[in-house]
């Protein structure tokens, strides 16, 4: 009984602390409209942090990510469109900052490579089945 109560207490504590895990600087920025706040959140998900490369700007706690978040927020408030902001970041850091890279010559393999591999696999499977059938 005492054990269960201890577990419940721990669970309650964890639930109470959950909002803190998400608390960061983004809550302090005052946007002009809910749309702008939504644009901001969306941009942060789409842009990669250059310091911790497998995190988006929204997730990263790196110093540079913090700076870039502020830069994006200020640009949005100045009235820049998300496209303009993205274009500026790409010009500065390259396509790498985008989690969804644009389709161009150098990224064709990145976009269609998996499908190509799948086709190769299907071809091998088809050959194997075909051979077994002809032997039977």
């Amino acid at each position, binding site marked *: 009984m005492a054990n269960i109560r201890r577990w419940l207490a721990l669970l309650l504590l964890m639930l109470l602390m959950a909002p803190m895990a998400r608390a960061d600087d983004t809550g302090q920025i005052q946007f002009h409209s809910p749309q702008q706040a939504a644009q901001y959140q969306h941009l942060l998900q789409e842009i990669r942090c*250059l*310091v911790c*490369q497998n995190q988006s700007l929204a997730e990263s706690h790196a*110093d*540079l990510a913090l*700076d870039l978040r502020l*830069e994006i927020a200020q640009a949005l408030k100045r009235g820049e469109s998300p496209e303009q902001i993205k274009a500026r970041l*790409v*010009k*500065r*850091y*390259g396509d*790498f900052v985008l989690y969804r890279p644009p389709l161009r010559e150098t990224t064709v393999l990145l976009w269609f490579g998996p499908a190509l591999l799948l086709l190769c696999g299907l071809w091998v499977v088809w050959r194997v089945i075909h051979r077994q059938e002809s032997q039977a």
Partner: protein
Amino acid sequence: MIRRFLPLLILLAVLMVAAVGLRRDPTILPSTLLDSKAPLLRAALLQDGGMPQTAELQALLPQGKPSLLNVWASWCTACLQEHAALQRLAASGVTIFGLNYKDTDAAAMAWLRERHNPYRAVFVDPQGILGRDWGVYGVPETFVIDGQGVVRQRIVGPIDDRALSQQLAKLSR
């Protein structure tokens, strides 16, 4: 005959791709500035007292001779590691400019006083705003600028002065 060795050939191809892929350091990103004019860098200079002075990198670049822009900070341990290499380069006559990134003037000044100062001039960027124009995402970073003011290379992390001086010699020709 070929059929027999096909699996082996495929294995070799995969191994080759893996060998190349695994050796690449994904944290080193190519600079978008390569082969374009160095972004305008106009900022206050780091100095030991006296009247604050502002300067423009483009005006200070030696004409027809390559130079370096080294982004550093007193809090950066890798900068300490490459300091000797910078000094060797400066001693051999290479013009090196500094960009003091997210640092305080006092700390930067003390750091330079304690060691030798390899820089022709150091621009200060306490907020890291100028560094952003150059696509800096970590310190140290070193940009090689040719005699025409064009960025020719970016090195992320501590420099290797031997490789760098060879490259500078190539650019001087």
